[in-house]
């Protein structure tokens, strides 16, 4: 390479169903893109080490730590954040289940937990306690309300399964 590498790049992505085309610095993280440039502050940033899960969003359906993923990698990708779950005033079944099970206290970790639960139930609709713990153990709740969170994910799984049966799937 003779010329220095470009320090910004154009990305075309779909964020919560909306097409986005932006010039982004290579050093910009997905979390900063979402929070600072797109105003999607539902995604939280905490440990910045991929340990706590507060920043979890879905990229092409897979959960990622947006705090340490680079926005330049979003070119051609579909991104889903907690803001993209509800349909109008209708909350997503996972959001409903978190409310029903009182699965939050301060709420800071909640968007991350909800996105991880959505990823889990998309990949593994019949998730049992083992899968739920395996997938959710990468998210931390400093209020330590883990039992209601597990209840909420179990509840969401059963509601989604019932809805799928009703839809004749």
């Amino acid at each position, binding site marked *: *390479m003779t010329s*220095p*590498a*470009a*320090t910004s*790049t154009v990305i075309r992505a779909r964020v919560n169903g909306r097409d986005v085309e932006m010039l982004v*610095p*290579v*050093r910009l*993280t997905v*979390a*900063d893109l979402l929070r600072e440039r797109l105003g999607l502050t539902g995604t939280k*940033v905490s440990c*910045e*080490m*991929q*340990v706590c*899960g507060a920043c*979890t969003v879905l*990229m092409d359906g*897979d*959960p*990622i*730590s947006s*705090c*340490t*993923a*680079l926005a*330049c*990698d979003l070119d051609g990708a579909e991104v889903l954040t907690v803001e993209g779950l509800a349909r109008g005033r209708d909350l997503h079944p996972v959001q409903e289940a978190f409310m029903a099970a009182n699965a939050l206290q301060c709420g800071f970790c909640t968007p991350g937990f909800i996105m*991880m639960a959505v*990823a*889990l139930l998309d990949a593994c609709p019949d998730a049992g306690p083992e899968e739920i713990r*395996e*997938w959710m*153990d*990468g*998210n931390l709740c400093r209020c330590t309300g883990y039992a209601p969170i597990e209840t909420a994910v179990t509840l969401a799984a059963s509601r989604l399964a019932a809805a799928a049966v009703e839809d004749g799937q």
Partner: protein
Amino acid sequence: MAVLPELGLVRSGDLDEVLATVDSDHAPYAGGTELVPAMGLGLRRPEAIVDLKRVEALQGIVVDAEFGTATIGAAVTHRRLSDHPAVREHLPTLAAAASRVGNARVRSTGTVGGNLCFAEPRSDLGCVLLALGATAEVRSAEGTRTTSIDELIVGAFETSLTENEILASVTVPFEPPGMSYWKLQSYERPTLGVALVVTEDQWQVTVGAATERPTRAVLAAGDAAGLAAFVDRLEFSDDMTGPPDYKRSVLRAHLGRTLGAAP
């Protein structure tokens, strides 16, 4: 929020172009699960990252049933590895270990090559791949060389790769009968990993995570003295997950339980 320093991007689908670019200032980049936090902490300061993810040749999983091997591209994620039907069939222990690396987010972005090249001692894949006798294909603009996992990982956060080389793939012989992998883990990374291949006449013991690099011993079945000598020889690391004596005790207890011979 930590802001990364100014950073360049080299992105190409062409392996030769990538190989011509990689050097000490142009860091190979795939999942970013280790590199991005390291840059955030100022531990790595490359001028540019060289994206390997769009190079087709680094993405495949090729199974050769005739030779009984699977060749895994360096940019294959843990999730893709653990979900791959042929890997699950022929390398079930590797698939299971990959399915439990880090957390679900790390598994969807982190890659096999990144895991090996970062050479974090507390890793599952290094231990399991060493136990399986995997070989690594290393590429540079000058050519290709093949190396064992033992020669690839030389120490904590240290590989034998030069700054112009990248790991292209690992080729793994199908799992032998009698293989298992067990780990002790409280947080994101294993404290101790033990891969065993136990046959009627041989004990093959590979210990990872608790030492600077995974270490393998091949013993005659029932060689309790040899096993004890191997465990005594290991230099366990002293870190947040526990002092060396603790790790040695856990290893002894595990080997005693699984091999029926307390070392």
